[in-house]
């Protein structure tokens, strides 16, 4: 299907158009992201059946791969692209009224460009192009993290920028080495040529890629930037960073490990690093009794650890569970950050204690919050239950003693997770408000995204079969390298 490049071109053109719209009306700029992302979402959903049947390979510029950059709109790419458009759209709706601090027109441009970067990174089939889109995503994230320009925001932005740039440099070194070895940048072409060389000699390159992408994915010990960045950014940015940005890092790690270099032998390492990240994230979140956004940020680290653990199993079932968890976490964490954003705005403090008793004041927001926390902890019948269950199944099916031990740790970490999320629910519902000043419910543009996300979590929990085929296809795409190469380069 030839229109696939529009998934990238629409938000990009909308962002370039924004300065012109601003000349006419500054207030109109904030409506550009919802419109552009709605178009993207519709387009993406229309492409899903085609992408599931057979990956759509679109060459940019009209030459035959590997002589030009090509997009690969397979199940994995379209899943992440649609997820990005969906979450991006809801967050853009939220931001229409939430972002009051000027220069809000520039906020909306940067937000659109962030979404463009994420979409491009998951769709491209060229390793350097992946780096370029990744860098768009990162640069927009740095700027938006510092958007408030207060002490916390600028510090966090600087820290994020330095660590992210070091990661990007490592990726670029790895790309230079790949080009030196194989003389090509097309991912399918590289995957095709990798078999012809000794895989040990590629170890350094793979390590550079994993560390580089690991910084953005916030894998332990590369996660120092995340708690600061996610807690001091505006709520809508915390949501998109937690829901989408770090997931692109995980996607790139999985893509390079499995499709590009065919190294499932790394499974033990990835599983272990995932579990360590999970434990560090969850324990830090549990210990975070003060700042509620920081608690959610640490929880994101824990969830990323779980996703990496699932991908690290190096089986299609594991990747299925990982992708499922990735989608669920994106929906639930976006919901939590958005919901908490208006609570914090209403009570004027990020402290957990100041949210006491809000359950009566903001019933819809708090109910949605409860749904999201239940899903993240993995209670039935919410979406998170199914994904955690499939990860555990996949882990047990590998029949490896080490993995059994790790599963026990994963379950223990889930208990910790339940502990701090229960604390949040208890604060919202079972504490009396010390200050009976009425705060009132969030405005409509703040409620719509939260309610839609909550409904999606319940629907996916009850009817997981709506997602299963695309998740299965995405997981298979990672491991069926020969098919990937054949689709892109044509029959040998």
């Amino acid at each position: 299907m030839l229109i696939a490049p529009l998934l990238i071109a629409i938000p990009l053109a909308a962002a370039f158009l924004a300065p012109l719209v601003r000349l006419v009306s500054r207030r109109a700029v904030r409506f550009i992201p919802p419109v552009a992302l709605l178009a993207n979402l519709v387009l993406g959903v229309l492409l899903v059946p085609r992408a599931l049947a057979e990956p759509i390979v679109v060459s940019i510029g009209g030459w035959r791969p590997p002589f030009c950059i090509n997009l690969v709109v397979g199940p994995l790419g379209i899943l992440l692209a649609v997820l990005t458009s969906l979450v991006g759209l809801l967050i853009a709706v939220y931001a229409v009224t939430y972002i009051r601090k000027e220069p809000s027109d520039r906020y909306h441009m940067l937000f659109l460009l962030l979404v463009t970067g994420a979409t491009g990174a998951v769709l491209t089939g060229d390793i350097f192009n992946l780096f370029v889109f990744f860098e768009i995503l990162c640069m927009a994230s740095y700027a938006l993290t510092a958007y408030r320009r207060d002490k916390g925001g600028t510090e966090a932005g600087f820290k994020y920028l330095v660590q992210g740039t070091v990661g990007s440099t490592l990726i670029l070194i790895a790309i230079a080495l790949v080009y030196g070895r194989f003389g090509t940048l097309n991912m399918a072409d590289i995957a095709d040529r990798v078999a012809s060389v000794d895989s040990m000699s590629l170890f350094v390159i793979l390590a550079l890629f994993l560390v580089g992408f690991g910084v953005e994915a916030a894998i332990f010990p590369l996660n120092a930037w995340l708690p600061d960045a996610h807690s001091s950014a505006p709520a809508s940015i915390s949501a998109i960073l937690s829901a989408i940005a770090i997931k692109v890092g995980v996607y790139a790690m999985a893509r390079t490990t499995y499709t590009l270099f065919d190294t499932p032998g790394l499974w033990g390492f990835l599983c272990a690093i995932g579990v360590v990240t999970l434990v560090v994230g969850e324990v830090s979140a549990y210990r975070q009794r003060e700042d509620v956004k920081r608690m959610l940020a640490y929880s994101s680290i824990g969830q990323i650890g779980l996703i990496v653990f699932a991908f690290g199993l190096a089986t299609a079932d594991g990747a299925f569970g990982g992708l499922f968890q990735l989608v669920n976490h994106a929906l639930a964490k976006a919901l939590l950050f958005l919901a908490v954003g208006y609570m914090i705005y209403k009570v004027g403090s990020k402290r957990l204690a100041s949210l006491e008793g809000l359950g009566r004041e903001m019933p819809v927001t708090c109910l949605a919050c409860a749904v999201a926390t239940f899903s993240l902890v993995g209670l039935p019948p919410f979406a998170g239950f199914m994904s955690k269950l499939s990860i555990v199944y996949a882990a047990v099916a590998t029949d490896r003693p080490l993995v059994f031990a790790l599963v026990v740790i994963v379950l223990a970490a889930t208990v910790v997770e339940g502990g701090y999320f229960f604390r949040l629910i208890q604060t919202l519902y079972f504490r009396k408000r010390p200050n009976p000043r009425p705060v009132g419910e969030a405005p409509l543009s703040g409620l719509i995204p939260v309610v839609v996300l909550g409904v999606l979590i319940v629907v996916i929990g009850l009817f997981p079969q709506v997602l299963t085929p695309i998740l299965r296809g995405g997981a298979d795409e990672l491991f069926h390298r020969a098919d990937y190469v054949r689709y892109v380069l044509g029959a040998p």
Partner: protein
Amino acid sequence: MDLLGQSVYYVGAVALLLIGFYMVLVKANLIKIMLGISFLDTGVHVLLIAIGYVRGRTAPILSEAMRTSAGGGSPEVVDPVPQALVLTAIVIGIGVLALGLSIAVRVYEHYGTLDAREIRGLRC
């Protein structure tokens, strides 16, 4: 370092990368950190161009070569792709530098210092 001995350009590139990483890891001054990042950029650029170089060939601009050897065989030029990548990377680099330095200036306005050890969120 014997392996690097095959090319002084590789040595230069790796040295710049190492100095850059050292500055980012050890220095406390925010501007020194950004200078380190600029070395990281330059180092990768030299590395890429050195990888694309082929001895005894000319620059990938065919105006001269075309006129002399019209039609005969493939032109003897170095690899144009790394040069294209580095052009892209240079522009990305200046973008990162500009953004990083402007955030550093904002941090300075809040704290009155560029020393990361005296800035709450950067102490680590």
